[in-house]
C-alpha cells in the first residue's frame, strides 16, 4: 500500500486540499469488475428473452435464427463470465488482501459485526457519520458475498448444467456439472432456480449502483473512480 500526498496550486493561487489515496483495486480486479458487469447485462437480457421469447418471426423457419442467436449470445457471455470468475478466484489468491474480500464473511469477528451494525445504522439514518474503509465496508462485504459471489457460482454451475442438456450426456459440461441433476432430478426446477438467481443478481445490481453513487457523494472516500483507477481517495484527515 502506498500513500501519496498531492499538493498543487492553480493559477489563481487556490491550493488544492490534501487528499490521501491508497491503491486498492489492482488491474485484474478492475478488469474483472467491468467484464463481469457487461457479461451480467448481456446474460440477464438474453436470458430473459430465452425464458420469455420475443413475438414470432415472420417467414420460413429456415430463413430465421433469432432464438438461436439469442441463445448463442447467452451461452457465449456465460462462458466469458465463467472464465473471468475463475481468473478472479485465482487473483483472490495471488492478489492483495482487498481482492479476497468478497469471497468470505468474517463471521467469527465481533468487530466485523459491530461495524456491520454501524453501517446498517448509517443507512437507516441513525448514525451521523460512516466509518472510513480502504476496502469494502462490512455491510458491503456481507452483501457482495451473499448477493454476488455465491449467486455467480450458483449461476455458473446451474448454467453449465442446463447447457449440458443440449450438449449431451457425453459432453464435458455434463461430466462436470451433471451432479446438479442428482439434487434436482427434474431440470424444470433447475430452470426455475436459474431464473431466481438472475433476479437476485439484478436486485443486487440496482442496489449496488445506487449505493455506489450515494457513497461517492456521502461517504468519506471515493467509490466510483476507484473501480476505474484503482485508487481510493479519502476526503478528510480524521481517523476512523
Amino acid at each position, binding site marked *: 500500500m502506498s500513500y501519496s500526498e498531492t499538493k498543487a496550486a492553480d493559477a489563481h493561487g487556490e491550493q488544492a486540499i490534501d487528499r490521501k489515496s491508497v491503491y486498492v483495486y489492482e488491474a485484474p480486479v478492475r478488469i474483472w469488475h467491468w467484464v463481469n458487469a457487461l457479461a451480467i447485462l448481456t446474460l440477464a437480457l438474453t436470458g430473459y428473452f430465452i*425464458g*420469455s*421469447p*420475443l*413475438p*414470432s*418471426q415472420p417467414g420460413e*423457419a*429456415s*430463413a*430465421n*435464427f*433469432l*432464438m*438461436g442467436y*439469442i*441463445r448463442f449470445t447467452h451461452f457465449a457471455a456465460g462462458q466469458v463470465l465463467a472464465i473471468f470468475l475463475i481468473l478472479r478466484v485465482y487473483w483472490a489468491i495471488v492478489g492483495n488482501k482487498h481482492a479476497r474480500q468478497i469471497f468470505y464473511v468474517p463471521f467469527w469477528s465481533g468487530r466485523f459485526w459491530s461495524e456491520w451494525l454501524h453501517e446498517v445504522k448509517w*443507512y437507516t*439514518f441513525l448514525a451521523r457519520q460512516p466509518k472510513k474503509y480502504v476496502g469494502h465496508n462490512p455491510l458491503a462485504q456481507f452483501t457482495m458475498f451473499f448477493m454476488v459471489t455465491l449467486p455467480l457460482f450458483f449461476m455458473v454451475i446451474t448454467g453449465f448444467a442446463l447447457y449440458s*442438456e*443440449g450438449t*449431451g*450426456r457425453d459432453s464435458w459440461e455434463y461430466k462436470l456439472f*451433471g*451432479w446438479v*441433476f*442428482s439434487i434436482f*432430478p*427434474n*431440470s*424444470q*426446477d433447475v*430452470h*426455475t*432456480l436459474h*431464473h*431466481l438467481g*438472475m*433476479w*437476485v443478481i*439484478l*436486485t443486487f445490481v*440496482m*442496489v449496488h449502483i*445506487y449505493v455506489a453513487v*450515494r457513497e461517492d457523494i*456521502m461517504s468519506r472516500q471515493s467509490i466510483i473512480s476507484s473501480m476505474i483507477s484503482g485508487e481510493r481517495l479519502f476526503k478528510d484527515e480524521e481517523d476512523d
Partner: protein
Amino acid sequence: MAATETFYDVIRRQGITRRSFTKFCSLTAASLGFGPSGAKAMEQALETKERVPVIWMHGLECTCCSESFIRSAHPLVKDVILSMISLDYDDTIMAAAGKQAEAILEETKAKYKGKYILAVEGNPPLNEDGMFCIDGGRPFVEKLKWMAEDAMAIIAWGACASWGCVQAAKPNPTQATPIDKVIKDKPIIKVPGCPPIAEVMTGVVTFITTFGRLPELDRQGRPQMFYSQRIHDKCYRRPHFDAGQFVEEWDDEGARKGYCLYKMGCKGPTTYNACSTVRWNNGVSFPIQSGHGCIGCSEDGFWDKGSFYDRLTTINQFGIEANADQIGRTAAGVVGAGIVAHAAITAVKRVTTKREKTDA
C-alpha cells in the same frame, strides 16, 4: 420345466419358426440401437442362456403401463415376451387367480432364486403400515419386499414406480413411495412415463432377459438408450424454436402452421423421453405432433410443478402461487421503490443538515 430350458427352447415349443425367431432378433436389436452384430449376439444369447422369468406386480397405479405395453408396435416382440417367453405372473392379465396365482410367486421365488426379474407397476403406500394397498390379503409393500428379496433386478414401470406420480403428489395422504426409496439393495431400472412408450418397455424387458443384465443407466437410473435426450432435442418443431417462431395462443396462425409450443408451456426442453423419435401408437404421433405441448409426464414430480402450461415451477413458499419471474419482478420493484425512497430521504437529510451547519 427343466431349470436349463433356454428361451429358444420355449420359442420353438410354442411353434415359432426359426425364421420368425431370427426376424425378432434383428428387429429388436435394431430398436435397441445395437450395431450390425447386435442381432447375432441376441440370437446367441437366446439360444444358450437360461430363460429368465418376469414377475409383474401392481401397486398403487392405474394400469396405463400395462395398457401401453400390450399395444407395442412390434407385435412379435410383445407376443414373444408376453405369452411365450417370460411373463410368468401378472395378476391383471393372467388367467390364474387367487391361491393358484399366488402359488406362482412362491414357486418362482424358490426355483429361480436370484434369477428372475421383478417388474413393478405402481408403488407401495407406506402410511398406516401400507393398509392403503392390499394385494393378496396383505399390504403391497410387504409383498413387494418379499418378492424383491430374491430378484435379480427390478424394473420400475412408469412415473409411479420411478418417481411417485399422482398418488405421491402433495399432500400424498397414503405416503405413496417410489420403488427405489423402498428397495435399497437391488439394481433398479426406472422406465418413467405416464405411461412409458410401449416400444421402450418391450425393449427394456428384451434387453434384460436376453443379456441377463441391466442396460446402461443414467444418473437417475433410467436406460440411456431411451432417456438420454430431451423431447426438445429431437422434436420436429425444433427449427421453429431456433427461428423464434411460436404458438402465441391456441388456434392462432402459429398453431395452424405448427410452430413451436414453447410459449404454451411445452415441457419438451426439460423432459427426457423417446416420444419425439419412437412416437406413439405404432409411430403415428406424439403430443407435440398433435398440437399440444409436452406435459413432462416422465419427469420427477410432474404433478407438483405447477401448471402444465407454464414453463416455470410454481413456488408456494410465499403463501401465494407465483413463479420465479413474478417473484423476481416483485422483489426488483420493491427494491427499486426502496431505493427511490432512500435517495429522497438522503437528499432531504443532506439539505437540512447543511442548513443546520450554516445556521450554527
